[in-house]
């Protein structure tokens, strides 16, 4: 078997907050974690 070491990325939230774009993003995105499971248009 092949073993792939996984790195852990820095928090996207913290990076967006540091860049000053988090609040604006949260106001505009209607996020739902399940959205990714809806069959996408293709």
């Amino acid at each position, binding site marked *: 078997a*092949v073993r792939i070491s996984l*790195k*852990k*990325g820095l928090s996207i939230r913290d990076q967006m907050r540091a860049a000053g774009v988090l609040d604006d993003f949260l106001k505009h995105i209607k996020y739902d974690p399940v959205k990714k499971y809806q069959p996408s248009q293709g």
Partner: protein
Amino acid sequence: SVVREPIANHLDSSYFGEISIGEPPQKFLVLFDTGSANLWVPSTDCKSPACFNHAKFQPSASATFTPRGQSYNVSYGSGSVTIVLGSDTLRIQSITVREQELGLSQEEPTQPFYFAAFDGILGMAFPSLAVGGTATALAGMLEQNQLPEPVFSFYFSRQPTYDYGGELILGGVDPQLFQGDITWAPVTQKLYWQVALEEVAIGQSVTGWCGQGCQAIVDTGTFLLTVPQEYIESILEALGAQETSYGYAVDCSDTQSMPQLTFGIGGARLALPPAAYVLNSNGYCTLAIEATYLPSQDGQPLWILGNVFLKEYYTVFDMANNRVGFALSA
């Protein structure tokens, strides 16, 4: 103070590893995502700011690239990516898949992909979920006999660092990475790695929320434990949490005395201690949970077992028998 639905939580960390595509190999960092089924990386054609911040595939530099031309949108929780299909050689260490179908991104939403630590995504869900009906990377590995066993497994460290967050094992299971027996649960819908959730308990009390059945998707591409929104208030009350714009806040000094959450899966009781579901960020503690507003495809309440759960349970994905195995992580 309640400001808004704390969806900032989901923009947390992700775990990724290295693959290469093309001849000569072009390297990429990808999120290995059991919650989606497409393989895509940024391409040199992409003009979105997010692409400038990541490695980009250059088709003209690969002797083995074949364009396929079709364009599709692949949607994720925070937006969708436009890809154009092609095929090329995929390598993951000693694994080689020739003529693997893949997407080359043409457009990516700046937020949050610009800030992602990974370049692209390697989806590990079932082929029926793949946009454009493209062959998944795992299907290619199986067809070209690249895996000794038709399984893969994930270990996520309880104390992750940037350099070591865990391990993906393609083609096997590592007994060093878990303790006790593996509990198996059959996949209930061959789109994602979805299993039946028989029961949820908070501390010693069984909630009864799954009396009519619940479903749970095992998703390495989701960071948090995702709860059907109709249960969020009860959980906050039971755990003494306050909703703030930074998430569901709790007093860090209470963590030790908070109850464990228990999930009935495959006839076993999988416990999640407070140390696993409370995030402590510089002395500010929040619950590692978020709400979902949509039921599963068959209408039952849908939970998502993200990295927060998978740190506690080493997870085996059995492609031959369509089942998921859970064992307490080492």
